[in-house]
């Protein structure tokens, strides 16, 4: 039996997040005590570096190296930022951790502060997470009462404080430089790196930005050691990853799996298979920055590098399962619409390029495209990918590129045959009445919003294809299955 392995989610559903006793009972704050009393900051960074932990926000940058860079900087002030601006469509693992195991994030941030020499932590959280905010506030308060936060933590020289900053729901503020700009009260838009935040971040000071899930991994690594962590997952991507499993799958939910598990296992075993016995088509990972994984890659072990090599990415952990009813062109369009809404609009390739890309895809799904459109799409994707300023833009064409790579046939069908096999792209659908089945009940004609169905009572009806807006009302209203879609 294939099972989840829970590191980041270890306490979620096990402890009362509002009880510090529950947390202490679950080895809470032991990692902090160990660090403060038995380890030098450099030792802590070494453990994290050697554990091979990589940023769980999506980029997969080695956490220890980030910490080391910030630790190496000489500055009167440094900052630890927890990125809780979760914005991938369908992903909510950060919320689950913050709501379910609040103290573990505070503890890990404090450890990070100790390691790099920062005394100020900021949790940048979306304002749409009121419960998480409430629990964090309570947890900060009680941690201070106990002396796990604040001045002279546990009687040591080390002081660390955490405050909350609210994001207003801009996806791009998940990008670390945009997040920092937002905390500074500026428009949430990325700036060119280098300098990296570890060198010049918040208010120009060395700053570490780590995602919630990354922080949730810190304490277990300190407590159980780097070797234990490395024993889980793969060589290059040790540990686990939390995914929000969604889409056409039976057991939708939050799962934490060891890196290296195959997608097949995730879908068949943990996810309980495809819903309604339909046929699997693809899985999308990495949200709007990712791509799709198809049947042929079902047995690829999931880790950062493998996902990149098959044209997708880990991302923050959205995992959307698609079946035969999903149109891949439409699917790419969906993510692109999201990107266009969420782009900050700063750089030209992302601001204008993605809009034009969407317009090209719309041509495909509307049946207005000709064969030259594919090279146009490809060239535009290449420019957006290479020339955009931040991660959002650089990855935004991925859903298009990956569907083009694996489902070129569906694009071709839309373009050449003007057909959408999944019957999703409305403009390409054709509603027809089967004369044999129609008994002239007039129900379809009466319900048609544009009055394009004609026929006398008890006689076979016909749809005027030119006037039809493909709304599908007749189809749903016909009691005799006399209307077919093709």
């Amino acid at each position, binding site marked *: 039996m294939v099972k*989840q392995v829970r590191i980041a989610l270890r306490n979620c559903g*096990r402890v009362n997040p509002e009880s510090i006793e529950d947390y202490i009972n679950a080895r809470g704050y032991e990692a902090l005590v160990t660090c403060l009393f038995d380890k030098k900051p450099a030792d802590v960074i070494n453990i994290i570096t050697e554990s091979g932990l990589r940023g769980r926000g999506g980029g997969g940058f080695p956490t220890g190296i980030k910490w080391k860079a910030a630790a190496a900087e000489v500055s009167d002030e440094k900052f630890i930022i927890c990125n809780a601006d979760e914005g991938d469509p369908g992903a*909510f693992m950060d919320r689950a951790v913050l709501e379910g195991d609040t103290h573990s994030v505070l503890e890990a941030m404090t450890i990070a502060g100790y390691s790099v020499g920062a005394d100020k932590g900021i949790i940048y959280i979306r304002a749409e997470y009121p419960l998480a905010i409430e629990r964090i506030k309570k947890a900060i308060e009680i941690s201070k009462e106990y002396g796990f936060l604040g001045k002279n933590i546990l009687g040591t020289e080390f002081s660390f404080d955490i405050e909350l900053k609210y994001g207003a729901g801009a996806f791009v503020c998940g990008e670390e430089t945009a997040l920092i700009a937002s905390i500074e009260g500026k428009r949430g838009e990325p700036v060119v790196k280098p300098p990296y935040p570890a060198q010049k971040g918040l208010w120009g000071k060395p700053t570490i930005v780590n995602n919630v899930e990354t922080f949730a991994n810190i304490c277990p690594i300190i407590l159980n050691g780097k070797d234990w962590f490395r024993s889980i997952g793969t060589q290059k991507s040790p540990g686990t990853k939390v995914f929000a499993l969604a889409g056409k799958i039976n057991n939708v939910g*939050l*799962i934490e799996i060891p890196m290296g598990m195959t997608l097949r296992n995730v879908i068949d075993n943990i996810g309980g298979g495809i819903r309604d016995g339909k046929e699997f088509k693809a899985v999308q990972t990495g949200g709007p920055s990712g791509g799709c994984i198809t049947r042929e890659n079902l047995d690829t072990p999931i880790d950062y590098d493998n996902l990149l090599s098959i044209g997708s990415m880990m991302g923050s952990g959205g995992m959307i399962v698609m079946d035969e009813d999903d149109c891949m062109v439409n699917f790419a369009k969906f993510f692109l619409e999201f990107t266009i809404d969420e782009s900050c609009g700063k750089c030209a390739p992302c601001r204008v390029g993605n809009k034009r890309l969407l317009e090209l895809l719309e041509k495909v799904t509307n049946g207005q495209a000709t064969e030259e459109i594919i090279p146009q799409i490809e060239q535009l994707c290449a420019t957006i990918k290479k020339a955009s300023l931040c991660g959002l833009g650089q990855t935004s064409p991925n859903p298009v590129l990956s569907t083009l790579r694996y489902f070129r046939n569906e694009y071709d069908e839309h373009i050449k045959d003007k057909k959408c096999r999944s019957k999703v792209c409305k403009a390409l659908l054709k509603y027809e009445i089967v004369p044999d089945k129609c008994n002239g009940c007039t129900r379809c004609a009466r319900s048609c919003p544009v009055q394009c169905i004609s026929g006398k009572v008890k006689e076979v009806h016909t749809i005027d294809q030119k006037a039809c807006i493909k709304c599908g009302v007749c189809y749903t209203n016909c009691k005799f299955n006399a209307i077919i879609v093709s």
Partner: protein
Amino acid sequence: MKLKSKEDFFKLKEETVKKRAQDKDIKLLIGFGTCGIAAGAKIIEKAIEKGLAERNIKNAKIVRVGCVGYCYAEPTIEIVYPEGGSVILGNIKSENALDVIDMHILNKSFESQYVIPRNFE
């Protein structure tokens, strides 16, 4: 209570662990994440409280926990027995409260139509 040293911490920890080990109540862990609450966790909590009172059960305690990840089966309750072992129940409705109490608290059954598979350690 401000902890001022490593010793303070381990003393507190020891006390806490000991206290917990002595706690012989059955725990009903109800998923109280945003998702659980949205799915009706608060209603379930009330129904269970009422049911426990009705059955005059004193050795069971409700604990509000975070999200366990079983989105497809919210609201969920994990019942943890003091002697070891637990069972996860899903898709609970308030009218199932007494049923759940009878089967899983009074009879300590590990099986029922409410049980969903646990796929993690």
